[in-house]
């Protein structure tokens, strides 16, 4: 439809060009060029205006001339039929023999002219004494008066008086006479004056009529012309409206060479281009939409496929992880068996053992324990991934922590010919950590140090404290690492266990787990090393000071991109038989690894700190967990815990609130 209309519009545009004035218009139209851009002939409007003006002036002048001619004609020719003229002639002939009265032809002419329109002539015969013997009525019935006069010829001594009345009045005015002229000369003067007046009047009337005609005569032409123009503009306007309202558009046809015709052509051309462009746009749009739909469909299908594959992959990964977890679990029993048999033999329970055998057995025991540690590492990393690692932070001394792993480390170091030393100066504050986790971290770092140190070297485990934080370091005299290697080591930590690379063998899971364990205990791990000068791995831990714990907890929370607000509340058992230890055990298994629980000062409540967007929901979850314990294994405190209202606070207020509950130091 759009196409056909376009064709019509184009044809019309070609058919209806204005009649060529100088040929240039048609020449241009023949060529298929941008009609909209065509220029109008220069000063065209001006020429037309001047033409019109000249026409009007000519029409005016001619009309004025016609009027003058028309008005003057009766004056020049009509006196022959004028009753007053007849009257004057009759009067002259009648009064020829009257001695006292001679009518001057000039006076007569003046009289006739004067009496043409509005003056009234009357005539009267008066005697010597001045009495009116006979008088005429007013013209135009002067003939009757004259005849009456003729019948009564004036006597000797009588005279004729001719007077003028100022206006046409049918009544005969007898006395006093308006003006009476004894002699003809006076009459002539007055008549001439009147004539002059009359001609001026006539001229004025002629001019007025002329102007009036001049205005009237060209008016229809002008109107016609204007109507033509306005109709053209109206059509164009209708076309624009159609275009704007998206209605079917008929081409605008204006004949002639007017600007409106040019406008129409330009408009038709523009409209056709517009419609063509629009149709093209619609077509393109539709094509694009179809393509988008196609692509969307393809994408959708691909997405579904990908999702399915992803699901399958996730399932496979899950299965694989569960499988390896199970395998790792299953490793434990045989490892324990190997270990136990080796140590039974080593202990001589099975019979006598030679020195050499005992050494072999020790190697077996160490290898088994290495393997067992690998299994533990693997299972821990699996738990870290699932975030199900239990964290139970309590105050411990550094010596307590080191004592737990010392025998194992010592025997391992001995086996490799390495001296193991520890340097824990007195006055190191207690640390608020999960002892097992930190044991694992130190164990992993120290095991690495022992592994990389050449025989005869020393590995030093040290501790120091600074502004509330305790730093534990593991120093070796191994080959060391360059700065780049150290950075790489930590970059790999950030990538997590996925970033493990074969060339970093030995620093794999153990280091990564150590870092994660330290992180969970609110600390951070660093390494300083130089080639051939050994490495020192050190990590920070919070001391058992409330400020330090809260500050390090806040640091850990603020590291996260989402910067969740902090929830803080107290948990208190409602009955005295529930021990705080059992609550803390339960919380350690229930809370997320980031959350921190601190024992209250009066041993009757636990304070919880957690990074959460909704502290109330957090509390509700704990209530629900407690309830599930009650319904399940009959947990002794289920349902008898009381949670305070959660408080969402910033760092300072958290600290303030915690200090208000338990003071600046946590009790042991």
């Amino acid at each position, binding site marked *: 439809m759009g196409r056909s209309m376009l064709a019509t519009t184009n044809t019309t545009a070609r058919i209806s060009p204005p009649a060529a004035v100088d040929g240039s218009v048609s020449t241009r139209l023949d060529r298929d060029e941008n009609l909209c851009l065509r220029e109008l002939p220069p000063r065209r409007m001006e020429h037309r205006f001047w033409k019109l003006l000249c026409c009007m002036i000519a029409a005016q002048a001619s009309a004025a001339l016609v009027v003058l001619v028309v008005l003057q004609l009766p004056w020049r020719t009509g006196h022959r039929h004028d009753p007053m003229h007849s009257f004057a002639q009759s009067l002259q002939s009648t009064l020829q023999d009257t001695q006292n009265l001679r009518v001057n032809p000039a006076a007569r002419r003046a009289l006739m002219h004067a009496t043409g329109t509005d003056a009234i002539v009357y005539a009267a015969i008066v005697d010597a004494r001045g009495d009116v013997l006979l008088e005429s009525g007013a013209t135009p019935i002067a003939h009757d008066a004259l005849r009456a006069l003729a019948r009564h010829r004036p006597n000797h001594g009588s005279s004729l008086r001719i007077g003028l009345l100022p206006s046409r009045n049918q009544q005969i005015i007898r006395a006093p006479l308006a003006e009476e002229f004894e002699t003809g000369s006076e009459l002539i003067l007055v008549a001439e004056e009147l004539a002059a007046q009359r001609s001026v009047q006539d001229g004025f009337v002629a001019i007025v009529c002329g102007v009036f005609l001049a205005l009237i005569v060209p008016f229809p032409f002008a109107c016609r012309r204007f109507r033509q123009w306005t109709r053209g503009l109206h059509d164009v306007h209708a076309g624009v409206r159609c275009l704007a309202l998206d209605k079917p558009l008929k081409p605008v046809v204006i004949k002639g060479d007017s600007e409106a015709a040019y406008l129409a052509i330009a408009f038709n051309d523009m409209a056709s281009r517009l419609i063509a462009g629009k149709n093209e746009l619609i077509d393109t749009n539709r094509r694009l939409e179809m393509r988008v739909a196609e692509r969307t469909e393809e994408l959708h299908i691909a997405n579904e496929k990908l999702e399915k594959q992803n699901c399958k992959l996730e399932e496979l990964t899950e299965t694989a992880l569960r499988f390896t977890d199970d395998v790792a679990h*299953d490793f434990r*029993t*045989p490892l324990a068996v190997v*270990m*136990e048999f080796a*140590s*039974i033999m080593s202990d001589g*329970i099975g019979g*006598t053992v030679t020195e050499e055998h005992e050494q072999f057995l020790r190697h077996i025991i160490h290898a088994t324990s290495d393997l067992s540690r690998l299994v533990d590492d693997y299972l821990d990393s699996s738990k870290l991934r699932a975030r199900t690692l239990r964290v139970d932070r309590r105050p411990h001394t550094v010596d307590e922590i080191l004592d737990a792993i010392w025998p194992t480390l010592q025997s391992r170091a001995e086996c490799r010919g390495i001296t193991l030393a520890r340097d824990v100066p007195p006055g190191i504050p207690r640390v608020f950590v999960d002892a097992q986790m930190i044991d694992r971290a130190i164990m992993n770092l120290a095991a690495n140090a022992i592994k990389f140190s050449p025989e005869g070297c020393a590995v030093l485990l040290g501790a120091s404290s600074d502004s509330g934080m305790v730093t534990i370091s593991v120093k070796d005299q191994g080959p060391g690492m360059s700065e780049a290697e150290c950075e790489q080591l930590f970059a790999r930590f950030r990538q997590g266990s996925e970033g493990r690379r074969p060339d970093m063998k030995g620093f794999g899971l153990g280091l990564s787990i150590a870092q994660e364990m330290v992180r969970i205990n609110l600390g951070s791990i660093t390494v300083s090393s130089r080639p051939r000068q050994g490495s020192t791995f050190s990590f920070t831990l919070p001391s058992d000071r409330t400020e330090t714990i809260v500050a390090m907890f806040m640091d850990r929370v603020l590291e996260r991109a989402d910067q969740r607000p902090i929830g803080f509340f107290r948990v208190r058992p409602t009955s005295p038989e529930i021990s705080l230890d059992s609550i803390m055990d*339960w919380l350690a298994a229930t809370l997320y690894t980031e959350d921190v629980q601190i024992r209250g000062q009066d041993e009757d409540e636990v304070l919880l700190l957690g990074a959460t967007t909704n502290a109330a929901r957090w509390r509700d979850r704990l209530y629900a967990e407690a309830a599930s314990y009650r319904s399940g294994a009959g947990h002794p405190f289920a349902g008898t815990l009381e949670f305070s209202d959660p408080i969402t606070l910033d760092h300072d207020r958290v600290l303030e609130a915690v200090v208000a509950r338990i003071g600046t130091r946590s009790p042991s």
Partner: protein
Amino acid sequence: MVASKSKPSSPDHPPMFSNKTVLLADDSDSLCKVLTPRLESLGLHVVKSHDAAHALFLIHKHMPDFAILDIVMPGGNGIAVLEMLRTDPRFARLPVAILTGMNDDRNRIRTEVLRAHYIIKCPTVWESLRKWFEECAGEMITSA
């Protein structure tokens, strides 16, 4: 020829227990075998089982003084056996150690709630068991 050294089959000091029985239930025969001499070295009489239901039967039969139960066994779950024991007043105070390869918090809490000891099978399993027996011995002395 390397100089050989002889170790006595029994420790130098007198055994920790006398006339006491321990039930050891684990599906791994080797673990049972390796733990038996260790337990015997403490002066304990060892009753072995590789099956949960059988273990329960043996407990009722022998009335042991200690029980060591694996969690995953054929014929049942060690924790289920423990729960059954705790419902019986005769075994309400029986010292029980749960021996498992899985370090699972839920199981750990259930075990602790049922007043039993949770020991993970690892190369130091005997160390852990020995400590537990020492604690039990201490408790027996104080209660006696």
